[in-house]
């Protein structure tokens, strides 16, 4: 009864040792491009040339033109690549070296790929290489890119285990259009792969939230990060270079209100040593014994900090800078335990920051810090000046100090002088050897580093301890998520002056010249020509574009905050919110429950997509009639045999019970009319006859 598809579809099995199909090979090459591409930002470019060569070779092998490399050639190729690696990267254990080695192995393996087993191995290596790219690229876009690459890899695997698309319409042209069929096959594997990946997302999410986070098992080579942001010294022109960059330095979220812009002085480094042109840290500022962690008992210089007024708690997510120093609002009371605070109130990590880090601080923006009362060495350091140079400034500083009598009045006079005679510009004229003299008394144009540098020099020349502080000032508010984004363009330099009975006091000479810089940010404080030097965003004048940029930035921030910085602390907090009491049993239950639900959902989707075969009403009633007949004939000891058609069966029954033969003949005639001629009108008749039929004698 079943109409069989006549063509026998049994094919010889694709055993694990069977050769690789053309479509799989081409697809593998394409996927390799996507897997390798992100790595070429870091690894030497000649690896790409090796890839092209190997692909060409492998393709020739596939075409049968060339052979697989023999042992000698293989060794030669490996030696050449190793030599290339040593020549371009040197011999050391760094991340780039490791990744390059892996990539070269991955590429050369193509020349050894003979059967499906090798093919699968290659795909597995590709999984690992895909994972390594996230060491360097970890933003939200690279996550999407990773998903895309994973879909491609899964397609590669699925191609091995999926039936080729049937060519119902093109079977006669099968040989003419291999490309078209290849593409069709790819598409047939790509869509279910993506479908499966999407179904896997909920469970991954659960695992991500629940799986315990462990610390590193062993030290690994970290990615080399080019140094960005504040450098360890400052000379004229450094900061004005820095502010041309729009690169993100860090993001801050405050618990509570965001303080006013003019209070946001993010300290990075404090410079106490002046070399005539360059400001840098004094040796004792680098001494480790002065650094304190937050949980150390308060002693030494920390006793001298007096916190006044409200405290604010804030979380900073700092981008990788390649430098150890971080950002802090003076004066911090507590800070994350793995960070160190110097006696000049600058915060730093124990090693250069090569990956994004997050830390939380509590600071009192009003404070009194009298360190130095007993520390003559430090005060002397902050009076240090080169023996010669800038004679004019030294002379005038002495005169003015004699004139005003105390530090505060002197500062007031100097600020007044700045306010009336100076202009704030990104393009100051270049300065000669006596840079402070030239700036103060001749050019009178400059940027924050000129103002802070000349101010501190002037103070020291007048005999007042002072030092330069560099960092960032202000920040851009993201209205979507209510956080501040501080970019390199917010880089700033200011000063601290030691005043008797008040301790270290912050003075910002730039505010005397360009008060809007402090209140409203860099972009507002520059004139039109200078603004062009700042990197401009595309369409920054359009409201909508700006809003979208804010949204995008906010999304990235959420990504960093909830995905990249999700650690055991956040995990405990989150889980205890859901489970109240975090214990292994509850976590196991959560995993099982969530896993079960996602499995059931997947199953439901699958079943919805493939309902039972549709059976027409006619077929269904025919089946039920036939079943009734069989049941009744069972009474006379006749049962249908598999493969027996209804008529044959009924005639067989008729030979057993000749008395029923006429009625059976009628029934089978009607039945065949209904089923084969699709004549529904006989159904009633048939049912009636069947009802009267009885196998009893």
């Amino acid at each position, binding site marked *: 009864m079943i109409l069989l598809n006549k063509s026998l579809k049994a094919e010889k099995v694709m055993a694990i040792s069977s050769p690789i199909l053309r479509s799989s090979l081409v697809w593998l090459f394409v996927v390799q491009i996507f897997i390798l591409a992100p790595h070429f930002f870091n690894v030497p470019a000649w690896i790409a040339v090796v890839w092209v060569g190997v692909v060409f070779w492998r393709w020739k092998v596939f075409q049968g033109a060339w052979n697989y490399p023999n042992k000698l050639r293989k060794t030669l190729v490996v030696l050449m690549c190793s030599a290339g690696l040593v020549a371009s990267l040197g011999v050391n254990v760094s991340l780039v070296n490791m990744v390059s080695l892996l990539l070269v192995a991955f590429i050369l393996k193509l020349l050894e790929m003979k059967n499906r087993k090798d093919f*699968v191995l290659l795909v*597995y290596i590709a999984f*690992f290489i895909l994972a390594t790219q996230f*060491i360097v690229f970890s933003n939200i876009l690279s996550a999407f890119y990773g998903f895309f690459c994973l879909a491609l890899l899964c397609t590669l695997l699925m191609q*091995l285990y999926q039936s080729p698309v049937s060519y119902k319409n093109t079977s006669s042209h099968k040989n003419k259009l291999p490309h078209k069929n290849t593409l069709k096959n790819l598409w047939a594997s790509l869509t279910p792969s993506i479908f499966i990946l999407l*179904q896997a997302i909920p469970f991954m999410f659960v695992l991500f939230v629940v799986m315990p986070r462990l610390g*590193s098992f062993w030290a690994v080579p970290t990615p080399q990060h080019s140094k960005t942001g504040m450098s360890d010294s400052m000379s004229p022109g450094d900061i004005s270079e820095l502010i041309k960059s729009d690169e993100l330095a860090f993001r801050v979220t405050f618990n509570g209100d965001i303080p006013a812009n003019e209070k946001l002085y993010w300290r990075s480094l404090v410079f106490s040593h002046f070399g005539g042109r360059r400001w840098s840290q004094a040796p004792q500022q680098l001494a480790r014994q002065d650094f304190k962690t937050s949980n150390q008992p308060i002693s030494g210089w920390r006793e001298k900090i007096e916190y006044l007024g409200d405290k604010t708690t804030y979380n900073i997510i700092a981008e990788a800078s390649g430098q150890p120093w971080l950002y802090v609002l003076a004066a911090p009371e507590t800070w994350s335990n793995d960070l160190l605070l110097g006696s000049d109130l600058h915060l730093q990590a124990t090693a250069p920051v090569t990956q994004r880090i997050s830390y939380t601080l509590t600071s009192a923006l009003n404070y009194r810090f009298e360190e130095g009362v007993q520390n003559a060495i430090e005060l002397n350091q902050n009076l240090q000046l080169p023996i010669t140079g800038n004679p004019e400034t030294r002379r005038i500083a002495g005169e003015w100090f004699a004139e005003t009598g105390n530090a505060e009045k002197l500062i007031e006079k100097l600020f007044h002088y700045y306010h009336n005679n100076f202009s704030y510009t990104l393009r100051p004229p270049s300065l000669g050897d006596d840079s402070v003299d030239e700036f103060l008394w001749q050019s009178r144009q400059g940027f924050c580093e000129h103002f802070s540098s000349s101010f501190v020099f002037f103070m020291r020349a007048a005999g007042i301890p002072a030092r330069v502080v560099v960092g960032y000032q202000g920040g851009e508010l993201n209205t979507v998520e209510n956080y501040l984004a501080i970019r390199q363009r917010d880089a700033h330099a200011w000063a601290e002056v030691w005043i008797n009975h008040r301790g270290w006091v912050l003075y910002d000479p730039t505010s005397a010249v360009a008060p809007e810089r402090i209140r409203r940010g860099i972009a507002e404080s520059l004139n039109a020509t200078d603004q062009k030097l700042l990197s401009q965003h595309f369409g920054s004048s359009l409201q909508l574009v700006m809003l979208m940029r804010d949204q995008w930035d906010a999304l990235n921030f959420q990504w960093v905050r909830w*995905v990249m910085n999700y650690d055991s602390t956040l995990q405990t907090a989150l889980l205890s919110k859901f489970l109240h009491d975090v214990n292994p049993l509850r976590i196991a239950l959560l995993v099982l429950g969530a896993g079960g639900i996602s499995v059931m959902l997947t199953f439901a989707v699958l079943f919805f997509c493939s309902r039972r075969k549709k059976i027409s009403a006619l077929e269904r009633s025919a089946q039920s009639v036939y079943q009734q007949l069989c049941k009744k004939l069972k009474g006379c000891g006749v049962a249908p045999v598999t493969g027996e058609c209804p008529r044959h069966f009924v005639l067989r029954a008729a030979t057993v019970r000749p008395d029923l033969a006429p009625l059976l003949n009628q029934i089978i005639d009607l039945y065949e009319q209904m089923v084969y001629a699709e004549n529904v009108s006989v159904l009633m008749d048939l049912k009636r006859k069947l009802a009267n039929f009885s196998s009893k004698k």
Partner: protein
Amino acid sequence: MSPFKKYFHRWATKRLPRSMQVILRHKTIYILPGKQGLAFLLVVLLIWLLGTNYQNNLILAFSFFLISVMLVSTIHAFKNMLGVTFVPAPTQYAAVGDVAPFDICISSQYHNNHHTLLLVVDDCSPVQTNLEAGQPIQVTVGLTAQHRGWLRLPRITVKSYFPFGFIRAWAYVELEHRALIYPCPIACEKPPLGAGQGDEGNYYSRQRGDEFQGFQTYQLGAPLSQVAWKQYARGAGMHLKDYRAQHSQQYWLDWQYINAPDIELGLSHMSYWVNQFAESNIEFGLMLPNIVINMGTGDTHRLQALTALALFGLAVDK
């Protein structure tokens, strides 16, 4: 076979008795990670180590994602097998020493594709097949016939590595399916004919009847040499030239006249002559001690004769 495997097979057999129709259901589908799946788990472990050592959540998420993909693929592997129905097709015949074909109809209870189902029987080369939505297919599993009589189809293992090869889903199919194995035809000089039959050489020369009788409509499987190509070229469609034997000769193949040292060889000779006569379209009958098959020609007749030879002296089951 290890004791565990033995135990497992016995257990699996109990769950799935031999029957005329086997539908793969949740009770009969087994799923475990295959070798490739274990290798994949190793890769995932490496990626997890990488993520932990670098304290990189994206890499960790990637490793969790891969595990989830493996988990979801078990569901797809299961769905790929679920509802596949195996029904034996009509019995086939083969000579001893030949490959006995077992035709099996495979269909699905659901409207979805079933990819790369591998049918493995003992140590025969496996058969791979794909089942497309709504299209039942027929596959042939070949088994080398060793003995005369009924050859039962042993248990088939149906395997699938769909979708990614991580997961091995398999099921055992015990079909009530058999093939008739007739004695291997062995040539001998003279057919075992009763006295007074057959002129010398007559039965050799006639490859087929040589008198042209007319045309028959073409039927699948008819020898191409019989196709009326001229008519086909004229566009009249495929027809067969019908030849009939000129003289209606009749022969009785009689067991009594078999001259062979043992029964098996005798049966082989009989089988040879049955085939010879059938191919030459000569009418023949068969006389065995237990059964007499009347004169006849055609494939049905030939099979009847071969069946009698195949089952000669064997306890007839069913």
